[in-house]
């Protein structure tokens, strides 16, 4: 990921800013330009999502990609936020064997990656068991 792309997505990654359609009240994350339900009559506005949700599904990563070597094994989950959108997030601060489908989580601000030792640090959301 390049620095400009990371920078453009800071509101989404730091603060879970998605969009809400003023026509059908659907909440979307990540943000879209057009409401998939209302199409051209939809009216999307920035919307800050609530930071609570539930684990819909998860996996435990034992063979991590570059940059996550020191963290394996860790749980990677699909989290459904209270307002409906689902997102993929790492479950932090826990033994991955404790994680269960249906667990309540809160979204927290963590280091997600970095462009090597001398590059920019990517911060963003992870989920923590409540």
């Amino acid at each position, binding site marked *: 990921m390049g620095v400009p792309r990371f920078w453009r997505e*800071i509101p989404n990654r730091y603060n879970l800013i998605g969009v809400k359609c003023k026509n059908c009240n659907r909440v979307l994350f990540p943000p879209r330009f057009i409401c998939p339900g209302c199409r051209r009559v939809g009216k999307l506005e920035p919307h800050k999502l609530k930071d609570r949700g539930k684990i819909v599904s998860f996996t435990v990563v034992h063979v991590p990609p570059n940059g996550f070597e020191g963290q394996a094994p860790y749980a990677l989950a699909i989290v459904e936020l209270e307002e409906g959108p689902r997102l993929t997030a790492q479950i932090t601060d826990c033994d991955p064997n404790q994680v269960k489908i249906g667990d309540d989580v809160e979204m927290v601000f963590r280091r997600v990656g970095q462009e090597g030792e001398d590059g920019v640090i990517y*911060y963003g959301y992870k989920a923590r068991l409540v």
Partner: protein
Amino acid sequence: MDVGIIGYGVYIPRYRLKVEEVARVWGDDAERVKRGLLLEEKSVPGPDEDTATIAVEAACNAVKRGGVDPKEIGAIYVGSESHPYAVKPTATIVAEAIEATPNLTAADYEFACKAGTAGIQTCMGMVEARMMKYGMAIGADTAQGAPGDPLEYTAAAGGGALIIGKNGAGALATIEGTCSYTTDTPDFWRREMQPYPRHGGRFTGKPAYFKHVTSAASALLRQLQLTSRDFAYAVFHQPNGKFPLQVAKELGFSSEQVLPGLLVVKIGNTYSGSTMIGLAAVLDQAKPGERILMVSYGSGAGSDAFSVMVQDAIETKRDMAPKVLDYVNRGINIDYSTYARLRRLLVR
């Protein structure tokens, strides 16, 4: 002085390393270390935590307790000796993460363990001068201790944040006054590009910690015409458990006044977070009308002393965010090898 604390918040990482584990690796006598330092364990940051993430979570808790619109925060100062970037302010990351951007001033402070309280003084001055409605001061660290160095027993991670504003209905405590004492005393330092600090051993005590803390505290008491009996609580910087209790005695404070804010025994020395987490622990239990003395210490060296009077708003604001003990009591114990991995002493 017409400024007070509008909100406060802390964050302490979850992992804990016991003195026994460090002593086992280096062949030290754990009981002797525990007696000497008055310390049982220290907090350790997770692999995805750094000073910025700790500062953000503490800041979010302060905003929740303060009940303020983050856009009204006109300044954010993050004090730390472990900023994730050498050049790129942690304060900008915090400001973005609490949605205080873009109309504010922000900067990082460095002054060993007292950089956070230096930020409080800056915010006090700016609020008093009507330059802004609220200012936020944060002290946060992921402290480094070289493997085998006595510092390894204590160097911990954690942070505290305060929102400073004018006194009034929103203030959960007023700040009655502040006083500082600063000299050039090389008791502890870290040179550019070096991963670990060095220190002067016993020299960090008498001419450094004790001289600066007692001098700043005494000057403040003289200025406000108060004595130790006027305070319900006293919070001193906590590099270990022994120093704050000893300095309290020298200043005429009892251990009962100090113990409610003495967290080092369970979480270690959180450096810039230390005094601010101590103050938060006291605010978690103090009653309106009680007075708190807070004195930080930063090596190099200097101390900032504050007199804080708790107000009625504490009763409604206290429960709006997690308390210090909520974080202290949720620790997960790890062994030295896990610690070595988390602190990247061992890298795959």
